[in-house]
């Protein structure tokens, strides 16, 4: 094979390059104090941790995920049964709570992690990234593409990782400000409520289709798959289960809507805590050219943030509370992240890198603060932010007027003519 020699194989690049201390936009480089040798040492240490986990992976891990699946299904089944009598308030409360928890675990600790291939090693075709489908609007196939490929490969690279704000939010000063960002706190609130549909549209790459970067035939084929999935999902929660509840139909429908929405808000919050809280770094496109394995590891560590909490908390977040460990080793079984976390943290601190973590409310607050802060343009010396927004709004209005001038004239003329 001669052609392979020239092919860029990301994992075999081994040439670290010196990086500038301050980026083009004036951002401090968080790894300027590390030599290329340091970075490769970090890479080797992390590879060793990974190898250790791989070597000890076995029956206990397999039992963990099977137990998790069994528990989740039992909880879902029981909650659905209780909801058959949701007319009675206690049944409504118990059933809705149970279903919410079941849906959250299904999406996070089970679905997200299986789709990452964390359990492929068991060779169980029922618990495999290539066969799994989840209780979420976005079809597993499409999500795997946008999430596992784009986001996990180009984590926090401005302009390449669309998870930085999901095309609709501005969460980093290096992202260009546009007038519509003024409304992003409101946009984000509704995104949280309808998160699964937002992600479905995002995975479908609706934006790419509108911008002409996604092929129309591919888009239509994908759209068909999404609609099919949506029909099944909605049919289940909003038609079949309510009908089955007979006299409790309306309350079951409400319960299912609450469970789906609560799940949406929860997953939105968890995911927000993964890359948006204060202290998380973003990167520039140039910085990943010829990136080595060590540099890739460092970017993953600096571009992610953890959530501290109890074991139950970790399960409910699908161990995305160990976002740093997950981004280093997306395919290691999630039950192992807690085990390696102290070592990853010690390693980062030893090399003077910041291990960003905190309790959920603090991290959610920090991420939301960013959404508010970056809804306004970056502060420029000698300009007020409000003034910049007003100027942008004025420009926008002028644009609208300019592009519709003909119509306005005619209107004015017809208005003037009317009384006569």
């Amino acid at each position: 094979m001669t052609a392979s020699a020239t092919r860029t194989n990301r994992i075999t690049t081994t040439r670290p390059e010196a990086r500038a201390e301050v980026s083009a936009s004036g951002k401090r480089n968080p790894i300027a104090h590390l030599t290329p040798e340091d970075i490769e040492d970090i890479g080797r240490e992390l590879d060793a941790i990974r190898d250790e986990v791989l070597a000890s992976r076995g029956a206990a891990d397999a039992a963990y995920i099977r137990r998790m699946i069994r528990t989740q299904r039992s909880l879902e089944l029981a909650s659905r049964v209780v909801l058959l009598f949701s007319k009675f308030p206690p049944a409504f409360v118990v059933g809705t709570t149970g279903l919410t928890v079941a849906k959250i675990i299904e999406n996070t600790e089970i679905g997200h992690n299986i789709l990452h291939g964390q359990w492929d090693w068991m060779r169980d075709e029922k618990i495999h990234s290539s066969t799994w489908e989840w209780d979420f609007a976005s079809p597993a196939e499409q999500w795997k593409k946008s999430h596992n490929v784009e986001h996990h490969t180009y984590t926090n690279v401005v302009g390449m990782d669309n998870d930085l704000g999901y095309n609709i939010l501005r969460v980093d000063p290096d992202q260009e400000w546009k007038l519509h960002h003024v409304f992003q706190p409101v946009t984000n609130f509704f995104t949280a409520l309808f998160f699964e549909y937002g992600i479905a549209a995002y995975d479908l790459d609706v934006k790419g289709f509108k911008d002409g970067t996604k092929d129309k035939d591919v888009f239509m084929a994908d759209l068909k798959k999404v609609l099919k999935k949506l029909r099944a999902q909605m049919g289940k929660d909003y038609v079949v289960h309510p009908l089955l509840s007979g006299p409790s139909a309306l309350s079951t429908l409400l319960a299912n809507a609450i469970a789906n929405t609560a799940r949406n808000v929860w997953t939105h919050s968890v995911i927000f805590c993964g890359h948006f809280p204060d202290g998380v770094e973003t990167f520039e496109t140039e910085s990943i050219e010829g990136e080595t394995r060590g540099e890739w590891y460092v970017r993953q560590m600096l571009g992610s943030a953890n959530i501290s909490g109890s074991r139950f908390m970790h399960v409910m977040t699908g161990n995305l509370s160990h976002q740093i460990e997950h981004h280093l080793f997306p395919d290691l079984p999630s039950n192992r992240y807690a085990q390696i976390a102290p070592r990853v943290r010690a390693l980062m601190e030893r090399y003077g890198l910041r291990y960003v973590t905190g309790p959920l409310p603090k991290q959610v607050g920090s991420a939301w603060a960013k959404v508010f802060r970056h809804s306004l343009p970056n502060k420029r010396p000698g300009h007020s932010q409000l003034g910049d927004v007003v100027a942008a709004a004025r420009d926008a209005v002028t644009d609208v007027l300019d592009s519709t001038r003909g119509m306005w004239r005619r209107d004015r003329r017809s208005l003037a003519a009317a009384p006569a």
Partner: protein
Amino acid sequence: MTSPGDVVAPPQADRSSVKRALARVGRGARRVAEALATPLLPEDFIDLVDPLRSGADLRGRVVAVTPETPTATTILIRPGRGWRGHRPGQYTRIGVDVDGVRHWRAYSITSPVGAETISITVRAIPDGRVSNHVRHGLRPGAVLMLDQATGDFVLPDPAPDRVLFLTAGSGITPVMGMLRNDPLPRDVVVVHSAPTSGDMLFRRDLTALAAQGRISLVTRFTATDGILPVTALDGVVPDWRDRDVWVCGPTGLLDDAEAHWAAAGLSGRLHTERFRPRIHAVGDGGEVTFTGAGVTVAADAATTLLAAGEDAGVLMPSGCRMGICFNCVLPLTDGSVRDLRTGEVTTANPEDPVLVQTCVSAAAGPCHLRV
């Protein structure tokens, strides 16, 4: 009883229309159940309660694990209700989880037909993950994955009168499956080779059958007597030409038998079962065959399977190209590949294909990937 002149169609039509209506109701119920369970299947929930029910993915519960010889173990399995039975001489595949990883292996069924349980006999091979697990790790009560019985190494119905079974080592297992059924062909000769009498599988069963006069048994212990050449059959079973013969054992025996019967112009009477533990040549790089695309290319130890396929013009699924996204996984159906990150070698057989990440795996010897 209806006389020949009676019209018999109407009741039949009634019955079949009722059946059709029932089938329609069944299908409707199934659709509702599917709508309730989506994106899972109704079975996924029923499995919580009854994993061995009929209609479930076939599983079996281990009833007993019995040592047969110092190295061979017989396990008794109660198959789930979906088990369709077997014909004597057929084999089944079992899926066993060893250290959390599922492995599939094929074994002959050695129990008589019609029983509630089936038995298989597994000989531990050195470093054999499954066979050693069966011997040392498997306990009664464990649930295994199971496949329906299959295989053409069976006696025809009606069975011929005069039969020769020529076996060696664990090649006796499918034959034992036949010999445990009634009635046997009128005249059965079993010529079986084993290293020593202590290693001989089913020694007690076979000698008992011989003592009852139901079979003629010729045993050969190769550690002391050497291997019995097929050409020496004349001295052991002078009328071998008049018999239908079933041969099962190591590749050498099968090859010799095929040549011998062909030379005698009697290939039509020869039935063989090839039971070879596959030995894969593990090396650095090798020929990669993309079945489905019908492409074979030589790839070195540093070339990923993904790159090898793409360079050969195969439409390969791909994603991150660095081993994290699992969009490039394809089934390895034969041969070995090496993980470029860890150096770990993964081996697969047609009976036990394994999904591998093509973007971080290179050929370790000749291998087959299904695209």
